């Protein structure tokens, strides 16, 4: 998986013997000595943090699968049993549930990092696309997993999401019932969701392997986006970045631990502690927080199929981003105009998340009060008026797509970038660079 010439020399008889038969030690050694740009900041530690998250989810997930019962009559109770009766279940179940949120939290930072520093540009397009694929499989895994505790939000979330397939013209209903294995979300659905939820993390692990391979082959991007030219521009992955990443992982785990130990349910929804009931819809269905922006995009359109297509488009546009951004400059540090459009993009992503959590008809931004009239025109009270969440999400959705389809393509052609440093070393050491390089 390493793109640099191997410097590994087997020292002992056994390692020499192994190196001729399966050079797996060499692969590990080359991985650890991979020359990484010397200017990576802490935003670059989220790759390691995400690896830790995936490992944590797989380990806790396999343990939970040993105690969980994927049946509509027992699923809800079995999760409660894990939390109350299974030794250390009180720790392992929240680690998995909170872990899902932490995983998405880290992946969003990782993605915004990539957007800001232009990590999707040549020669890293495939690296970026594999990353988008990982995110897509993560979303599927997260959704499937949320169904398993069989609470009200599990059930109704599954009903709404599988309803998307029903919107496909002509074959929609057949397709939806084929996915559900019945007329509605039921035992057959729960069983297959469990099987797929178990499978997909290993698909993610395989994709992560390809992601790292592509990273090491194309070379790592860095905050200034200038490709390394000399040995002085790089540092060995170990010990420099194993320690830096390790420190970031520990800090991240403090946040993780805070939620696991003190707020294990803060990131979930209280309604999921009510067992699934096919006869009663919760008054306010919301997905997990990490899907809220896409939920807002879905609801921004008054048409079912159009809403779904727009939501799919919001993810699909990420895959073609390398060809939408026309600027040759990678890092936004040297793009004085694009930087501000990026900040606005970040702002509207939060706005979309907010809209996704609220009732569409409610007022988001109050402009003032207005009189409420009865049928005869007499004033009977007053109410707030202003921009409601539907319109706010429309504005934010418009900007989301405009950023990718309009701003980045046009800006790359008209923006005058700032001068970039000659080399990474020069950007780090300034005028002392010559002495260091010599």
């Amino acid at each position, binding site marked *: 998986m390493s793109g640099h010439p191997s410097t590994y020399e087997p020292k002992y008889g056994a390692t020499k013997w192994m190196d001729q038969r399966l050079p797996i030690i060499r692969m590990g050694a080359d991985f650890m000595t991979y020359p990484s740009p010397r200017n990576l900041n802490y935003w670059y530690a989220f790759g390691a943090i995400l690896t830790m998250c995936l490992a944590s989810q797989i380990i806790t997930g396999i343990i939970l699968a040993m105690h969980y019962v994927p049946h509509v009559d027992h699923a809800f109770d079995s999760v409660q049993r894990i939390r109350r009766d299974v030794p250390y279940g009180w720790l392992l179940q929240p680690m998995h549930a909170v872990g899902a949120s932490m995983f998405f939290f880290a992946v969003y930072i990782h993605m915004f990092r990539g957007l800001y520093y232009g990590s999707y540009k040549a020669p890293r397009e495939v690296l970026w696309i594999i990353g988008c694929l990982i995110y897509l499989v993560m979303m599927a895994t997260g959704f499937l997993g949320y169904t398993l505790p069989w609470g009200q939000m599990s059930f109704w979330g599954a009903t709404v999401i599988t309803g998307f397939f029903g919107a496909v013209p002509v074959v929609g209903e057949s397709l939806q019932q084929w996915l559900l294995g*019945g007329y*509605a*979300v039921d035992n057959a659905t729960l069983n297959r969701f469990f099987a797929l939820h178990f499978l997909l993390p290993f698909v993610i692990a395989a994709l992560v392997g390809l992601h790292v391979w592509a990273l090491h082959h194309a070379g790592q991007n860095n905050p200034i986006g200038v490709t390394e030219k000399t040995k002085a521009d790089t540092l060995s992955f170990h010990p420099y970045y194993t320690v830096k990443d390790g420190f970031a992982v520990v800090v991240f785990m403090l946040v993780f631990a805070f939620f696991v130990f003190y707020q294990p349910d803060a990131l979930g929804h209280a309604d999921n502690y009510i067992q699934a009931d096919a006869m009663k819809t919760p008054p*306010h*269905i919301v997905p997990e927080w990490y899907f809220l922006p896409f939920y807002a995009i879905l609801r921004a359109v008054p048409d079912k199929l159009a809403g779904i297509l727009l939501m799919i488009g919001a993810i699909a546009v990420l895959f073609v981003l390398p060809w939408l951004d026309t600027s040759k400059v990678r890092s936004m540090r040297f793009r004085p105009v694009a930087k501000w459009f990026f900040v606005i993009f970040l702002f509207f992503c939060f706005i979309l998340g907010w809209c996704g959590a609220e009732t569409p008809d409610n007022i988001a931004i109050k402009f003032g009060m207005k009189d409420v009239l009865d049928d005869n025109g007499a004033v009977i009270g007053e109410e707030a008026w202003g921009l409601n969440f539907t319109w706010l999400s429309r504005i934010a959705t418009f900007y989301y797509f405009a950023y990718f389809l309009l701003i980045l393509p046009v800006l790359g052609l008209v923006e005058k970038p700032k001068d970039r440093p000659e080399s990474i070393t020069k950007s780090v050491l300034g005028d002392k660079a010559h002495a260091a390089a010599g």
Partner: protein
Amino acid sequence: MSDAHTAKAHGETVDEDKRDFIYIATGAAAAAGVAALAWPLVAQMGKAADTLAAGSIEIDVSKVAEGQQLKMLWRGKPVFVRHRTPKEIAEAEGTDISKCPDPQTDNERLIAKPDGQLDPRYLVMIGVCTHFGCIPVGEAGEFDGWYCPCHGSHYDTSGRIRKGPAPKNMEIPDYKYISDTVIKVG
């Protein structure tokens, strides 16, 4: 094997026809095998025999009082049997359906009794919003019918979509009157 090697060594020609036959026969058998196996792998996801079998229920509509709604689970979905008030019937029949997203008269949403008469009092429909499958709340919304709390779809007293993102009227299940007051759904 050794014969072929010997033949080649002596500069004789390889029987290309024999090779082609083996390639094509193997390829064809593999393709047919993959196709034959793919179908069961796909079809197993569909509705199982027991799911299909648990398909019908009988409901005595006379037990539903005026202004009341009965909710029965049928094929994993709720069926609404609403005994409508005269006001609700009048609203349902008096609607100008040309403005409806999914135009249907109230009578088109009812099924005749054995004697051929329609009983507008009893509205039987699948109580599932046609948007994303939530269960609408009764006696709510801007048209006095049903309101879906998920994404704000308003249905009238005939279960027709009038406002909001849902594309269609609430579905009328496949049912028939097996006596004057008992219906069989499915």
